[in-house]
Each structure stands twice: as structure tokens, then as C-alpha cells.
């Protein structure tokens, strides 16, 4: 290991939760400072006000309906995307013919922001729940597809050779080597897909909805209620963190065999 300074050595010894609390504390202080300045006040309501608003709002059923609808849309779009990405990604990784047909389109559509094709989705599936789920689905699906098939493509050739010389058939190689070897990429796909789903949530709710965190933020924005906007943003962030944590726990269980760089 390289020689580190005194601060680094000290930080190395601290438990994780202390570091986290420290980070949160620092930012809350910064936030508070900004919120008392002349210009900062317009955008950032003070943290204690936000916390107060959040507690009050969370007592109301309307707030929970916003959260519930958004969560439902994100989770269903995301899970649908995952379930459909898995088989297609494996086919694309395994068969060059299939890859050569799909790959250019996947790369093409992937670079288009969801807001751009929003009207098309609305015309295609209507303004109901399905349009929101579709928008989330498209983004998450493409990200997961690309990540997983790159993983399948990158399966170590020598492992496949090792399987062959031990007598494995193509089918056995696929299920006992290619699939487990791609698992770390599947987990990465799950995390990237989640981030994309949350990103497209706000766009998805632009298709016109009476409930949802994105809708809440947009409406509040129009009335210049920055504390509600900020609260909505925070709640989406917290949702993301919780979901990410769940994926991390699953990841740890499934891919603990992996050689990882110690951090």
C-alpha cells in the first residue's frame, strides 16, 4: 500500500456509519449556510424547515399516495425490463447473428432521452398507468440489456474451454458456466437499471398524472413552492438509496465468490 497521510490513516480506522454521519452533517451545515444567504434562500429552504414539512406531509394520506404511485411505476417498469432483458441479453451474447441484428438499434435508441419519445408513447399506449410504466421500462430495459450482454460476451474463454475438456455439452456450458459467470454483470445491470428507472420517473409522470412524486414536484414548481420541490427530490433520493441497498444485499449474497479490490 502506498504511504498515506495522517488524516487518511485516521479515516481508515473509523467505522462506516461514523463516516456516513460525518458526511451528512457536513452537507446539512453547508445547506443551512446557503439557506440563510440572500440568493440561496430562493432555491434552498432551510433543512429544518424541510424536515418539518416532510413530517407534516408524511402524516397526510395524499403524500403516501404520491409515494405509492411512483414506487409502483418504478418497480413495475423496472422488473418488467429486467425480466425481458435477461433472455434477450443472453441470446445476443451467445449468438452473433442475433446480436448483429439488434445491437445497432439498441445503441441508437439508448442515446435518446425519454422525454423526446414521450409523445409517441402516449399516442401508442394512452395516458394511463401504462404510458408511465412504458417510459420507465424502455430506459431500464436498454441499459440492462447492454450491460448483461456485454457481460455474456466477456465470459472468460478459458472457463468455457475448461468446461469443454471436462466433457460439458453446449447446453451445460451455457447453464453452468456462462450464466454464473455473467452474474456480476447482471447485478451491475440491476443497479444501473434502477438508477435509470428513477431518472425517467419524472419524465414518465409528465404524461399527465394526478399522483406521483414527479407530478408533485412539477406542480409545486409551477407555484414556486421550493420546499415541496426539495422535499420531493429528497424522497426520490431516499427511495433510490433504499432500493439500491436491497440490491447490494442480494449482490453480496450471490457474488461473494468474486475477486474484488479491497476498498
Amino acid at each position, binding site marked *: 500500500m502506498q504511504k498515506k497521510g495522517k488524516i487518511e490513516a485516521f479515516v481508515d480506522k473509523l467505522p462506516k456509519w461514523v463516516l456516513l454521519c460525518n458526511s451528512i452533517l457536513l452537507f446539512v451545515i453547508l445547506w443551512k449556510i446557503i439557506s440563510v444567504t440572500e440568493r440561496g434562500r430562493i432555491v434552498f429552504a432551510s433543512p429544518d424547515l424541510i424536515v418539518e414539512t416532510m413530517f407534516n406531509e408524511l402524516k397526510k394520506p395524499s403524500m403516501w399516495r404520491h409515494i405509492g404511485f411512483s414506487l409502483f411505476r418504478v418497480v413495475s417498469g423496472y422488473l418488467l425490463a429486467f425480466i425481458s432483458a435477461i433472455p434477450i441479453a443472453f441470446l445476443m451474447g451467445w449468438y452473433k447473428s442475433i446480436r448483429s441484428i439488434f445491437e445497432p438499434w439498441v445503441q441508437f435508441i439508448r442515446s435518446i432521452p425519454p422525454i423526446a419519445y414521450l409523445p409517441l408513447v402516449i399516442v401508442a399506449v394512452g395516458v394511463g398507468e401504462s404510458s408511465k410504466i412504458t417510459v420507465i421500462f424502455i430506459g431500464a430495459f436498454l441499459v440492462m440489456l447492454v450491460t448483461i450482454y456485454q457481460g455474456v460476451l466477456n465470459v472468460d474463454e478459458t472457463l468455457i474451454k475448461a468446461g469443454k*475438456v471436462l466433457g460439458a455439452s453446449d447446453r451445460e456450458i451455457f447453464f453452468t458456466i456462462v450464466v454464473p459467470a455473467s452474474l456480476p454483470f447482471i447485478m451491475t445491470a440491476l443497479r444501473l437499471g434502477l438508477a435509470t428507472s428513477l431518472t425517467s420517473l419524472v419524465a414518465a409522470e409528465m404524461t399527465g398524472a394526478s399522483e406521483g412524486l414527479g407530478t408533485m414536484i412539477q406542480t409545486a414548481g409551477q407555484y414556486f413552492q421550493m420546499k415541496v420541490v426539495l422535499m420531493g427530490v429528497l424522497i426520490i433520493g431516499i427511495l433510490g438509496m433504499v432500493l439500491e441497498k436491497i440490491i447490494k444485499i442480494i449482490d453480496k449474497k450471490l457474488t461473494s465468490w468474486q475477486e474484488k479490490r479491497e476498498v
Partner: protein
Amino acid sequence: MSEKVIIKNLKKVYSGRNGDTIALNGIDLTIGENEFVSIVGPSGCGKSTLLNIIAGLLEPTEGIVICDNKPVEGTGADRGVVFQQYALFPWLTVRKNIEYGLKIQKLPDENSKRGWRKLSKKEILEICNRYISMVQLEEFANSYPKELSGGMKQRVALARAYAVNPKILLLDEPFGALDAQTRTQLQQDLLETWEREAKTCLFITHDIEEAIILGNRVVIMSARPGRIKEIVKVDIPYPRDQKTKISKEFIDIKNYVWSQVYEEYLSFRK
């Protein structure tokens, strides 16, 4: 000694963007049953290519390989391979790695309608235990490859190859990445196992001492395009051990092989 592997007029051409590479050109070699043949030669002379063709992982451009009177077509359980990069399945424990080949193995069985059967759980366990203790990894049976040292990993790879009981074992620089001490230890282990369990071995190495201490014969290959330059017989009786390396016969053979390999190296540089 009966003939186990016959290689006839083997040629391999790789075609790539920069034109064709002739990796092997006119290789003829016969390996006897239970013989141990080492191969040395300059880097890039086609040693791995030859081994992969015998294993059935690559197809030759011309010529054929015959194992047990049958031409080689694809991989087969009669030929085991140990790779330099260990090639252990990282998601499986040591025990599960060794079991891998046993679980998919199909044994001929007349009583079964399909004509074959799989090994029972009990049989797999027994065989697996035997090879885990052969490579002295009892304590690590439930560890994952990432928890093992290089030498231990290669011992697992050896056990995994041995467990399915191939008659021919192909080893491509298996000890190349190991330190001198571990290397010596594994050479010794390999020699002992080879003497105990009859097998035909083809062993690729860069290390001339290693080639001689292990082999009945040492095949010296010439630089690209790969041909066989010379085959040196090692008339030193087994069991051999590290002391053999200081005997006069050994040193004479070593000097000779070395001069031949060096000559190849010089001609390649021109």
C-alpha cells in the same frame, strides 16, 4: 509400449487481419501409452496450438491426430487439460470445482435404456475426496478459488483434471506462473501421481530442467513456423527427484537441450 497418440503431418494456419500465420507446419509425433513427453521451444512456436488441437479445442488446417486408433473430433473425456491460467470456476468451491466434471460425466451402462448413467452422489463424493487428499487440500475443500494461492489453485486444477480419469493429460505450462519452490513441489507431486496412476502426459514448458526431470522424452520445437527440431530421450530411470537434477546424466542432457534451444532462439532473431 503401444501407441496412444499419433500426430500426422499436422499444419495449422491462422488467418487474421495481418495475413496468414503458419503456426505449425508438418508436425509428426507419436506418443506411447503412459509415456511422459515434454515440449520446449521458443515463445510463439506453436506449442499451445499443438496442445489445443490434440485436446480438440482447435481444428488443424491439415493433418490428423489419432488417439486410441480414433481420429480426434472435438473435445473428449479421454483427454484432460490443465491450463496455465488455472481456469477454475470462481463461483464454485474447491470441492465443487473438482466435482464439476464428475457430475456431467456419462458412464456407459448396459442396464440403462439410454445406454449410459450418471455417477451417484456417493461415487462423486468418494472420488472427489480421494483427489482432494491427493493434492492435500482437505482444509480448503469449501474455500473459493479467490481464497487460494497460485500453487493451491493449480493443485485444484490438477485434481479436477485427474478426477474424470482421462487417459491422456495435456498440460500447457501449468507451473509457469509459480515461484521456484512451489514449482518444484508440484513437479514432485505430478511425478508421483503419474507413476501411481498410469497416464499419458504431454507437458509444455519453458523450463528446460522441468522438461527433463519429468519427461521420458523432450521434444524441441523450432521457431515459427513450428516444426519439431529434435527429440531428446531422457534415459534416467524413475523415480526421479530433486537430487536427480545434480547428477551428471541430467546435467549433460540439460546442456545439450539448452544449446539446441539457444540455437533456435538465435536463428529466430535473425
